[in-house]
């Protein structure tokens, strides 16, 4: 239904060599896919190109068979794609409640929106206690929680997560990943999880894709990837 397909995608900045060069990738419907790779492998660029924040030089992006390539970011989002960017992107001047409402604006009418936000408060207990707090007063973990909850309010088909564990305490990371896996299982949401924290990512993922220098060099079940020392050495550096 909502398979995300990337066809010969080439992306670069300025006149420089492309960061992604003719990338082909297919993320099947449902389940969590870990997007792995060293620094500079092109993980963030891929996620930004999928959402249209970085223009592609060539190639196509399809969601459930529909071509997203020419659409601006906000329309891709309205087709069911969501990105939680690295560094969290919480709107610091808005309250927790306003951030969540903003996330659901295009999807729900007023009453349903309220219900969807309340659902997130149930899912992320700590946020419920800080509804009226402004974004800038939240801790790192609370911000990541808010960014994730805000993306989920809109009930996306495919959720793109960029380095959610960056700079967070291990316990918080475990909690977040747990909620993510639970939600994916319950709703059939597809998650593409870009991570440098390979063990954490593979522990919740069904599949793993390894990017290296702009190309997908491996695409296997997560357990297999975790058990393959040669691959880990070659591309993931441990």
């Amino acid at each position: 239904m909502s398979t995300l397909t990337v066809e010969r995608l080439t992306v670069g900045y300025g006149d420089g060599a492309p960061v992604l060069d003719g990338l082909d990738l297919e993320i099947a419907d449902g389940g969590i896919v870990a997007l792995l790779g060293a620094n500079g492998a092109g993980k963030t660029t891929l996620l930004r190109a999928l959402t249209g924040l970085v223009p592609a030089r060539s190639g196509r992006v399809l969601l459930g068979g529909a071509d997203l390539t020419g659409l601006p970011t906000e329309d891709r989002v309205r087709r069911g794609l969501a990105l939680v960017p690295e560094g969290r992107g919480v709107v610091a001047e808005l309250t927790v409640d306003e951030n969540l409402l903003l996330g659901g604006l295009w999807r729900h009418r007023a009453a349903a929106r309220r219900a969807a936000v309340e659902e997130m408060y149930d899912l992320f207990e700590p946020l419920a206690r800080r509804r009226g707090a402004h974004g800038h007063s939240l801790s790192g973990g609370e911000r990541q929680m808010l960014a994730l909850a805000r993306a989920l309010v809109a009930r996306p088909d495919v959720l793109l997560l960029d380095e959610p564990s960056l700079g967070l305490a291990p316990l918080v990371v475990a909690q977040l990943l747990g909620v993510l896996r639970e939600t994916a299982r319950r709703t059939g949401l597809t998650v593409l999880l870009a991570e440098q924290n390979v063990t954490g990512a593979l522990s919740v993922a069904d599949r793993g894709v390894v990017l290296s220098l702009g190309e997908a060099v491996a695409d296997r079940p997560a357990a297999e990837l975790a058990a393959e020392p040669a691959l880990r050495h070659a591309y993931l550096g441990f």
Partner: protein
Amino acid sequence: MDRLVFLLSSGLARGAVLALFALSLVIVWRAARVVNFAQAAMAIAAVYVAFAITAASGSYWLGLIGGLATGALLGAAVEAGLMRRVPHTTPLPGMIVAIGLVMILQSGLSIAFGPQHRTMRPPFSERPFDLGGVPVLSPYELFVLVVAALVMGGLALLFNRTSLGLQLRASAFAPETSRLLGVRVPRMVTVGWMLSVATAALAALLLVPTELGLNPFAADLLFVNAFAVAVIGGLDSPAGALAAGIGVGILSSLVTGYVSASAAPLAVLAVLTAVLLLRPGGLVAAGKARSA
């Protein structure tokens, strides 16, 4: 004492108009991160339309509505037709284009309508009420205060209590994040311009009957004073614009009354300079200011 009360009350009305115009600058600054130097010229163009409608229909109120609508349309046209095409890496190109727009609008209006001042009749008397022998606030000044209060209250509700307002605020603060949440940011920028220029047109409409009359340059001084007000209040802060507007209005009324009319612009300049040097982000700067 009587004189003080009179000056304070007329300063209040003057300050309300200033605050309204300053608020329009704050709105467009927050929506698009530009100081619209063409705001006065655009507002006056809308007032000319209001003037023509009032002259044709005989109704001040039809003219008022027409002027506001023209302001909104003009704001949308300038944003979508012009400002969107200007490179935004530095504020300089936007300012230069706005200056070009001022020149086009003012000379265009002069060519179309001639340079003479046209008298605009206020809808209410300008003779002050007499409170126990002390002259305070004319009916027209009261009208100005009420309208300004209503509009500011309405805008506050719009921005803080509606989902359109939520999207406007989010787009202003975090455009990229907002797009990732499905907010149509370019449309929000256009809406911001529409609200801003309509508000500026209203302020100019309220001002013109109290001045010499309508001509293409009638709002220049209002713009400069309102800019000073917006800066003093902090360009990002509607509440700051309101407070500084009232303050500067009363100050210039007092200086005009006790010193001379020509000293008033100097007093405003002095306050502006002092605030800029002591607190470059304005008095109500929220934490560290975003870079321009």
